């Protein structure tokens, strides 16, 4: 295979969620060197925060475990966590990435024994649970974290507590003085797998998300249903801690909306059906109403939809709710027009779940180079010199299966870029 005098055959993958992991593994298992850069302290991205996948209702950690095992056994993959790309220079075959490493304050000698957490007293909002609960200022991101290594939160740096945490570590793994650092990375191809963030529900003002604890988002619902979530997997009404009797699941909270996300986020319909299944699994008498514009259950996912359609306790209301207002006693009232019956409704619920859409991470901060994007911020590198790819939700609103498909394709494009035959 000709290498065309490329100065680097390394593939840099930016983003360590399911797409980045997939691209990295597929390329590495075909014999290429890969550097995987992840912004947060552990890999897995958004899927690690999901309780289960539709339509099999299986656990994302199951597939992640396989992938982590593949990474552990593969010496061609180098993983950097807490790493962001500050700058990119060069072109296909000869990129130089400036990678910034944020301080984790825990060195690789950490054995994950947990003595530091035992010594910590300060608590910080738990990012893994979207801030729904607190964890110690020295923490393991979650039980499946990979790498299995603790993090010391910046809040205790420079405090006596920080010193106590450091002293508690038998393995001298705590580095309170660690500063942000950076290094240069040579790569022949770059795959952007920077994923997505949930759309900020607070911006949908008629839904009053910030005013009622009983109005939650779909990503928060995943944590509420997860055994390692803030309620240990029991879905409870946040304001009272009681089991919910009536729950509304609101589709297109932000998606298909010129005022928010103009595109359809694709996954929300099925994710909400999954939430209906979580609720029905936990509570035999719970009533679930799904408010929707169109149910988008493509291909075999239609089967999952039909199964839920057969559940007499799940009601389907073709309507985009106009507003959600805290009613008497703070009970959220969902208001709107049922488009099939013309009925104007104002229905109280114990809990309302907003199916917020996926917004490309580029909305929060543009990538470190001028990557071609569409009007929504999805990376569409068509027409570039072949050295740039995008994978997964960085490239468009995709579900997990399609993200993996996209990431596998991106791996091929990347190996073509670093070792394929000569091109014009």
């Amino acid at each position, binding site marked *: 295979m*000709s290498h065309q005098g490329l100065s680097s055959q390394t593939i840099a993958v930016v983003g360590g969620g399911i797409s980045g992991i997939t691209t990295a593994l597929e390329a590495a*298992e*075909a014999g290429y060197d890969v550097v995987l850069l992840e912004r947060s302290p552990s890999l897995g991205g958004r899927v690690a925060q999901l309780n289960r996948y539709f339509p*099999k*209702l*299986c*656990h994302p*950690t*199951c597939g992640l*475990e*396989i992938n982590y*095992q593949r990474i552990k*056994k593969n*010496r061609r993959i180098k993983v950097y966590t807490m790493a962001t790309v500050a700058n990119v220079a060069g072109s296909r075959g000869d990129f130089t990435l400036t990678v910034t490493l944020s301080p984790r304050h825990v060195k690789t*000698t950490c*054995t*994950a024994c947990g003595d530091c957490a035992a010594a910590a007293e300060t608590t910080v909002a738990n990012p893994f649970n979207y801030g729904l609960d607190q964890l110690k200022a020295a923490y393991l991101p979650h*039980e499946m974290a990979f790498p299995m290594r603790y993090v010391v939160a910046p809040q205790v740096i420079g405090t006596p507590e920080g010193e106590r945490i450091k002293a508690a570590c*038998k*393995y001298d793994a705590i580095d309170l003085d660690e500063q942000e650092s950076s290094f240069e990375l040579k790569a022949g191809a770059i795959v952007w797998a920077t994923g997505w963030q949930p759309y900020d529900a607070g911006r949908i003002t008629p839904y009053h998300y910030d005013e009622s604890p009983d109005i939650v988002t779909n990503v928060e619902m995943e944590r509420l249903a997860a055994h*390692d979530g803030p309620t240990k*997997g029991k879905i409870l009404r946040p304001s009272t801690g009681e089991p919910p009797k009536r729950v509304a699941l609101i589709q297109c909270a932000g998606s298909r909306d010129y005022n928010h996300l103009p*595109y*359809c*986020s*694709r996954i929300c319909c099925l994710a909400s059906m999954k939430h209906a299944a979580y609720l*029905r*699994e936990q509570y*035999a008498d719970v009533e679930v109403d799904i408010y929707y514009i*169109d*149910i988008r259950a493509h*291909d*075999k*996912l*239609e*089967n999952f939809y*039909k*199964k*839920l359609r*057969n*559940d*007499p306790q799940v009601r389907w209301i073709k309507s985009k709710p106009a507003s959600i207002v805290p009613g008497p006693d703070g009970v959220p009232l969902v208001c709107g027009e049922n*488009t*099939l019956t013309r009925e104007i409704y104002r229905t109280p619920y114990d809990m309302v779940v907003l199916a917020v859409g996926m917004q490309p991470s580029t909305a929060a901060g543009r990538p470190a180079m001028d990557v071609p994007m*569409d*009007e929504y911020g*999805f990376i*569409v590198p*068509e027409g570039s010199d072949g050295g740039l790819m995008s994978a997964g939700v960085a490239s468009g*609103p*995709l579900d*997990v*299966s399609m993200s993996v*498909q*996209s990431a*596998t*394709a991106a791996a*091929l494009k990347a*190996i*073509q870029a670093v070792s394929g035959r000569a091109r014009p």
Partner: protein
Amino acid sequence: MSERKTGVYLCSGCGIGEAVAMDELETVAVKEFKAPHCAQHAMLCGEEGVETIRADLAEGKVNQLVIGACSPRVMTDRFQFDNAQVIRANLRELVSWSHAPGDEDTQAAAADYVRMAITQASKTTAPEPWIEGEYSQRIMVVGGGSTGLMAAREAAEAGHEVLLVERSDRLGGHARGYAKVIPHRPPYRDPQPNDIEALIAAVENDPLITVKTNCHVTKTSGMPGKFQVELANGAGPSNETVGAIVVATGWRPYDPSKLGHLGYGVSPDVVTNVELEKILAAGQPKRPSNGQAPKAVAFIQCAGSRDPDHLPYCSSVCCASSIKQALQLVEADPECSTYIVYDELRTPGVAEEFYRSAQAKGVIFLKGKVKSVGANLTVVVDDALIGEEVPLEGLDMVVLATGMVPNTTIPDLPYENSEYAAAQLQADINPLSPIPVAGYQGEAPAPLPRPADNPPPGAPILNLQYRQGPHIPMLADGFSDSHYICFPYETRRTGIYTCGPVRRPMDMGEAAEDAAGAVMKAVQVVRNAAKGASVHPRSGDLSFPRIGYNTCTKCRRCTVECPFGAIDEDEKEYPVVNPTRCRRCGTCMGACPVRTISFDNYSVEMISSMIKAVEVPDEFEEKPRVLILACENDAYPALDMAGINRHTYSPHVRVIPVRCLGSVSLVWISTALESGYDGIVLMGCKPGDDYQCHFVKGSAMAKERMGKIADTLKSMALETERVAQMEVSIAESHKIGPMIDDYMATIDRIGLSPLKGF
């Protein structure tokens, strides 16, 4: 390997040293097992600890390592040494983090894990890969439509030679007849030019690609790196060798003659979307009946799709394709009225822009069910949004948006051995089950009916000369099989990857990407096959099943039960392993009644010896002993995480990770019972339709085999509870401890095994 010199390294870090007496463990290694070298360290994973081991290896003091420390799932990179096998004894997650420190039962558990690890070390060798003869790096692509063409080009771009086989006389498939295609490039608003001619030219002119038209595959044998393919074209059969196969046989439209209820056949002006493509490609649109320009056209969505009497699934592309066609009609004649009658409008993702673009250009969308289509083309719609029946009158044409039927077979080619082939398909396809909701109160919904022509008739696409049948496995909906959430390209036939609409209904933009994904897997498999290495999920594993023919009874269980069809039978009916098809799950080993299948580093004898290495308390000690055989992908990590969370459970269990529950040999169960264990628990993932087994059928096989064990237990005068199978998912670290404790309570209730001390 030269003389085995096993070094035992015991780590006292992370609380292990506080929980158990390290010296006693060292005594087990040195006194009981006469380990040539044993050392303790306070932090074995630290630079100094690892350096010690490295130095001992360099000095030749040891050549095989037993590391008694944390779980094998962590510090994997740290405890990786060239030319030395590493066996891990999990003293942290399974012992010190889950049992009371300083307790004699905790000590006993640690000692047993050391015993098991040293025993394992004595029964394992570093795998010697199977590498034999020549390996082909060439990739065969079956199907010369847009997906296949993309696949061929992608493989060539990656530097691989390609053989492209197309059954018709020309390349391009359906796409060749499209004037325009659904947009997949920004701004996603208008039908996009069709690049198919340029793609065909690129493929035909590519020096790495050999194109064979009028050609189909009549036989495929061999394995990844060494597929032998027999092709038929006009000139007679020819033979080719390829390393991997990408199947892109695409789709065909649902048979419109079954859509009489939607007016097909009442008038020549009722056409399918496929027929309309031809009209649009021919230039200015004309009505079939009189050649006039159509002025009012209605599209009926879901014609056959999402209909239990026809195709139960959603064909995904029809909404966008009707939008595209309506826009083409409007573009040709801005006065043309177009109506799209839908139930759910499905333009997911950025295709929403395409929907809005059509609306802005005057395409009218109506939600409702079509009640009738008259001979005068009046379409009566039960309009859900107005709430009354609305007749659409004065239409010139009605277009039925028919769905996609996957070409998982060659429907028009008869297959002489069709009964056998049909049986394979029946065994592959499971009907859909009711919703798995535990608290489900209402009437259980009926399983969804299968489409009428499923399994589809016709000849197999590759006609695999495999023991398990000629077809590429498929799912109940007729699309080819895939582990379709996390690993969509994983199938039950290694080295054969499907892509495009044969795998899932999809449009051309998506199929182009899918083609690249499938080619990635093909590239990977040919490169790994040549090294004797496995592909997903045990990527890089060099071990493979070796069969001891002297004791083989030709019972065929291994050839039937292998989830990947990796084992064939020779003319004398002996099993023949095709190593590069193998995914190393060990289901064959679990199936073999005479224990004659083994891997270099995983065998019936190895695990049996480990089971026997455990010190089982005698009947007077009144301490039960329970063996847990845990799937290493799900149950074992869950146990690890129970430890990480410091959930405690009975210290009387001993856990052995297995590659898959499918690899569990009944011999291990009898060995354990004979050794005086009081109970045996198999922990693995969920079998069935929504299976979570990474080896597809492994846990289902285990369940089936265990189903038969109850009678055996009764015949031995043993309680059936002594052997249990538990479904444990990886996310049940919080449940696994209580599950173990419940089982221990059962053992308490039925009492210790009567076989103790025999």
